[in-house]
């Protein structure tokens, strides 16, 4: 095992060196955009697992609000060719209490997704083709909530500009996976910590559809940043959804077998 980790370190060093040289030699907007995306991803490597409680506040165009409460556990996949695993369990509204959603994020292949329906004690494998559909009636689509994987998009650096009181890279990313509801997204990434501050989503007709603003960033284990608030505003419908996260717990040693479809029946 030691051998492998040493050789991995060397390999990583070579890759980083190669990439840096490559970037210096030919810094096209595309390579610069990709480098920024890789750096975002690199800064999250090694988080292991995390869990948090979160509330979704849904606001319709008349300002009426409804709330969803859920718990979210994430398991990092150390294989860069595969995505993370996530488990979501609802506790509110009460009629969907105990409903659980298990997702294995892939890079370009369709994700694997299962749903547990507590009334029937039934685990259903569901189609993940509905990437652009709303997640539980919110303004977040399934594809907005899956873990960030570099290979899901191609990139283009647009410019650097101020974002709030910070300096940001502005990059464009184009979904490479099938069934996306977007032609492109424009993301503002702060230069200091490579945190995604804001994203504009353009629909299939190239019209601005939604804007996501991430804020209240907290750092965990001295390394990993997480926004504790995410606001998604739909410009076309006037509806909005706010995600409010409670404090994350990291590296709690979550049992990997909890992320199996059969275990969904037992998770509370």
């Amino acid at each position, binding site marked *: 095992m030691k051998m492998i980790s040493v050789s991995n370190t060397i390999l990583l060093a070579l890759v980083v060196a190669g990439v840096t040289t490559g970037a210096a030699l030919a810094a096209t907007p595309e390579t610069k955009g990709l480098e920024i995306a890789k750096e975002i991803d690199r800064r999250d490597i090694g988080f292991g697992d995390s869990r948090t409680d979160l509330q979704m506040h849904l606001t319709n165009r008349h300002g009426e609000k409804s709330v969803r409460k859920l718990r979210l556990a994430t398991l990092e996949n150390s294989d860069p060719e595969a995505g993370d695993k996530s488990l979501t369990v609802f506790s509110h509204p009460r009629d969907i209490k105990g409903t659980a959603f298990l997702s294995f994020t892939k890079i370009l292949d369709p994700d694997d997704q299962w749903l547990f329906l507590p009334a029937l*004690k039934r685990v259903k494998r569901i*189609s993940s083709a509905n990437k*652009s559909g709303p997640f539980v009636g919110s303004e977040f689509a399934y594809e907005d909530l899956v873990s960030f994987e570099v290979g899901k998009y191609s990139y283009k650096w647009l410019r650097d500009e101020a974002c709030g009181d910070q300096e940001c890279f502005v990059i464009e990313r184009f979904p490479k996976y099938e069934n996306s509801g977007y032609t492109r997204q424009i993301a503002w990434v702060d230069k200091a910590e490579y945190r995604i501050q804001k994203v504009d989503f353009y629909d299939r007709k190239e019209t601005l559809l939604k804007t996501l603003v991430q804020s209240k960033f907290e750092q965990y284990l001295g390394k990993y940043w997480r926004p504790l608030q995410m606001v998604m505003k739909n410009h076309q419908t006037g509806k909005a959804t706010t995600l409010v996260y409670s404090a994350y717990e990291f590296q709690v040693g979550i049992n990997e*077998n909890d992320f199996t479809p059969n275990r969904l029946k037992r998770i509370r």
Partner: protein
Amino acid sequence: MAPKGRYPVVLTLAALLATPINAAFSQAGELEIGGSAAVELRVFPANRSFDGQERSTLSPSLVLEPEFIYPLNDDDTVTFTPFARFDTHDERRSHFDIRELNWVHLDNSWDMTVGFGKVFWGVTESRHLVDIINQTDAIEGIDGEDKLGQPLLNVNAISDWGTFGIFVLPGFRERTFADDEARLRGPKPVQADDATYDSSDEDKHIDLALRWSHSIGDVDIGVSHFHGTSREPVMKSVTRADGVSVFQPHYDIIDQSGLDAQFTSGSWLWKLEAMARAGQGERFAASVAGVEYTFYQIAESAADIGVLAEYLYDGRDNRAPVTLGDNDIFIGARLALNDEQDTTALVGAIVDHENQETIISFEAERRLSDHWKGEVEVRWSAHVPDDGFFSGARNDDYLMVRLARFF
């Protein structure tokens, strides 16, 4: 039946087994109270079929299903879900059951459930052929999806080669039947309290089941075997002391092997359930095979429409329990608005090839507020033959509305 005396032992075992591993979520020591209470109204527009049967068009009832969850620690949980229905017209439908009263222990690579519980196996929509652990609570609904709590000991081992489960089922639950004076009854009165058994142990026979299930890429597969008391009774015609011909349920000892599989590809779900059963007449096989295709975001809305088609085959002879799905086609559609109220609707029809017997059902539900949900259900039948599965209920097409409060 409640394992009252056993519980302290169970809890001690739980304490002994509790090793400090982390489940995905933990919230030890706090009793969670949930569940629901509902009022239900069934409307039967047609006249009764039998003398002495209830005449009322409207049949209200009340359903209580509270849920108590007590996490002992990160890995051990006790759940209690009693159930009660109070029906104005059906004495038998007014009933109480323990849906769940169990202790679940989760370990890294295995888990265990002891007590009354509910287990579901299967993938198809029109018929649940492979699902066999629980008895159907048939007076609750004619779709067979309501189940009685089953006493069980279940241990599952999770490995890279799938999940292996063993189920020891001490104590059999008899199927429930509508009262002879109520709607949705069988073609003859049923001697519900006078069942007969193959086994001299009767309802004390210890049934056993094994199951292996796994997800391999786009395929989810399960293989199971059951040995024990058939959940489906054979309805024997006997003559009662007063000369009336009635049904007496008889429960055979059977061996049933089952297979369920789903292949998920884009918007397509390909589903198969198959089983072979020995112990009721000649050994026979049955299967349900079908597809589900979903059209997402129809007409640029958030709504999805799924289309379902399944073929049902059953090779049983007349010594086995009568079944609906011997050579039938099921066609259905599922609508999900994906709105804040989670509005959904499902319409389906099962049509028999040979005699055109048709059962159509429609179900819809919508959340009305944080704590209230409304449901509507319609059942309609046509071309029901005199010896058919639903011949006693041919005039009992109904509309049901239900208002549920969740806690």
